[in-house]
């Protein structure tokens, strides 16, 4: 039986996916701005954050309205809880992409420090994790969500590797420090985007299976 509630849920889901698509786009443009040293593009990304913020507020309002009107239970309740946790994660991920662009504009005022190897890999891994986390949400696929969560360790490892390499540049010549720190920040931003994707995936597992898997194994199976 198609319920009125289902239409409301679909509407919120559509909004969230549109927001997700915008966030993905923001990430890929931040990567492009970084790789191509494109200050104009970076500034464009920074200027565009308002739209994502507006969508976050709109989804929040619609979700709260849904709780007030429908008092959801079971899967519906978990869906609403998931939306309310995923939306701010997406907004934060978009903020991080903007932070990348801010560092890019600063870096572009000086010559390039070094050829980039680890950070682009890190950036693409984080981008893929965000995309897959949204796929897992759309399909209600807890297995895919778990696969995405498993990728987070690799991203952490790449971040650490990139930091250690940048440290050698800082030790070598103090004039490298400001650029190396900015690149370290950028690495950290992508690493936190991957963390955001992980959080989204943890909520997908909760949505599908009703299990809380965040904060490590101690809480596995908690409901």
């Amino acid at each position, binding site marked *: 039986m198609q*319920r009125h509630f289902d239409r409301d849920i679909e509407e919120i889901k559509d909004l969230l996916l549109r927001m997700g698509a915008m966030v993905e786009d923001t990430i890929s443009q931040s990567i492009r701005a970084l790789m191509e040293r494109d200050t104009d593009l970076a500034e464009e990304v920074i200027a565009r954050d308002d739209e994502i913020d507006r969508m976050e507020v709109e989804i929040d309002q619609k979700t709260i309205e849904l709780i007030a009107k429908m008092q959801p239970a*079971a899967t519906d*309740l978990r869906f609403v809880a998931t939306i309310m946790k995923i939306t701010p994660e997406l907004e934060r991920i978009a903020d991080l992409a903007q932070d990348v662009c801010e560092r890019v504009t600063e870096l572009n005022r000086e010559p390039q420090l070094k050829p980039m190897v680890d950070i682009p890999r890190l950036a693409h891994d984080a981008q893929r994790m965000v995309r897959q986390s949204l796929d897992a949400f759309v399909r209600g696929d807890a297995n895919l969500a778990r696969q995405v969560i498993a990728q987070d360790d690799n991203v952490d490892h790449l971040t650490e590797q990139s930091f250690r390499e940048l440290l050698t540049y800082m030790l070598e010549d103090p004039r490298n420090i400001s650029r190396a720190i900015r690149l370290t920040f950028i690495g950290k931003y992508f690493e936190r985007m991957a963390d955001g994707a992980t959080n989204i995936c943890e909520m997908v597992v909760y949505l599908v299976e009703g299990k809380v898997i965040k904060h490590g194994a101690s809480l596995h199976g908690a409901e």
Partner: protein
Amino acid sequence: MTTITMDLSNTRSRDLQLPPDAVVPPKIDARGVNFFYGTAHVLHDINLSIPEKQVTALIGPSGCGKSTFLRSLNRMNDIIPGARAEGVIEIDGRNVNDPGVDVVQLRRRVGMVFQKSNPFPKSIYENVAYGLRIGGLHHRASMDEIVEKSLRRAALWEEVKDRLGASASALSGGQQQRLCIARALAVNPEILLMDEPASALDPIATQKIEELIYELKDNYTIVIVTHNMQQAARVSDRTAFFMLGRLVEYSETKTIFMNPREQMTEDYVTGRFG
């Protein structure tokens, strides 16, 4: 019309016993309960343990057997011609269906509140005192004390203390329902059965009844049948979901409303049928 098919093959009755995490001993223990109205088999092999001093809600669509089950706990179904019960319903270890059980005594221990308030055409005072009088109590001071205590427990005292001699029919619907609760409490029951006690009341009177249920569970074991799922979610500790005469799922209320195990429960609490 939606056709509902049932697959109860995975619903093992042992799963429907009181969950192992329950520390409160069962006050009521129903095992293998079947019930028939003539040839109609309306309850199928119900196994349900109800803990003491908690609120247990029975939910399910109309005709699912929840009220029949509730009424079988104090043998209110006995008065229906052709009704027949099988199985064991123990209260504190004693089967209420044993031939030796005094039904009047049983109903003193297991009080009942109905959907429609049914005060006697007497004064407020006499409504509460009625059960005591037929129980043989005639001492005025004791009577006064019990009437006041019962009305206080039913959260009605403050509203009626100045007009105890007035007719009960002059009270509002919500007050009449609380008077019926006071009347049930006066004979000092251990268990209170409530059959949709707030369904005929406005939201404010409903809220008062719900607050009262919350207060009463400190002293009484309460079993409530409700069509209002949010009410079940608000007032109960455990919820049993009935469907077509079978107990589909019985669990902590939060589990039923957040993460039910059975698809049928999920469909019911999310309003996909019912």
